[in-house]
């Protein structure tokens, strides 16, 4: 059972670094909503920064991979995602097609490399 819950410190971290930072913005939106112009320049910047942070995280997982992903050679990791992106673009922005093809490239590539 303690394996299931884990340690309490990690749960405190989840509250402080995970739950509160997100909920604060949602509740601020609720509180101040109406007073903010959705198309304002500030929000364009906010969206750009949020997108770039997420992009950085995508890069982080690929460049410094966690766990089992580290057993896949870097070129294969990048290649699989590149193929996924190309299929996504060709297949009229189908996320599903892109994800499946990217995964297949990684699986077949790793199997082929041994």
């Amino acid at each position, binding site marked *: 059972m303690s394996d299931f819950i884990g340690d309490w410190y990690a749960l405190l971290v989840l509250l402080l*670094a995970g739950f509160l930072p997100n909920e604060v*913005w949602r509740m601020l939106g609720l509180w101040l909503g*109406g007073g903010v112009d959705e198309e304002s320049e500030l929000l364009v910047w906010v969206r750009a920064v949020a*997108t770039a942070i*997420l*992009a950085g995280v995508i890069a982080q997982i*690929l460049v410094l991979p966690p766990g089992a992903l580290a057993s896949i050679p870097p070129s294969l990791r990048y290649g699989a995602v590149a193929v996924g992106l190309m299929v996504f673009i060709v297949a009229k922005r189908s996320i599903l097609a892109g994800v499946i093809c990217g995964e297949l490239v990684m699986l077949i590539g*790793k199997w082929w490399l041994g």
Partner: protein
Amino acid sequence: MALPALDSPTWQGTAAAFVLGMRSVASTILTLVLFATYIGIGALAHDTHFSLFWALASTMFVWAGPAQIILLSTLGSGATVIQAALAVTVSAIRLFPMVVSVLPMLRAPQTRKRSLILPAHFIAVTLWVECFRLLPLVPRERRVAFVNGLGTGLVSISMTATLIGYQLAANLPPLFGAAILLLTPLAFLLSTARNCRQLSDVVALVLGIALFPVVSLLHTGVDILISGVSAGSIAYGVHWWRRQP
């Protein structure tokens, strides 16, 4: 599955509206993307040594895929709690405009602010997109119940996926474990690419990916923040420059 007409008697109860909201999760491809994403998050939580309870609680209470991944990957790579909290806080700013833009669709004249707290918690990119698609088909006075149903449905599916991903990562051979971990960058890259509405979004995405590997050589502990704020600001600069006559 189509929703009943706006004047249909089916909409008369809030419970019925809640159930209709919950069933609407079956009507979108985004549910499948969400499922894949949360399988990846569950696997990531396992491989960065968090407990299953932690992973499930993060899906339920944080309810923002990008924030959960930032939290997992920063803490997993040895960042301090403050560094992780900072990166998550900045990434979560995007929830603010989402809530602001959905509120006018949700509110009816008699709606109390506290009944909007739960719908506001459910706001994340998937629900936000679905609100724009589905809410015009829902009578205004039933929208809060409908969104609560939709949110409950999406969170339940995501918690199930988190559980499955966690168990798969714990039990599968490394090759398949790696395939599940690859779901996260793939699904996020493609769903973010799909949400790009302006040139600034595209520049932010491309530059954000390109800049991180460079910044990460500095080992600052807040690499994600530095690369994100720089790439995002440059993207905004491009947007601003193109607007000039």
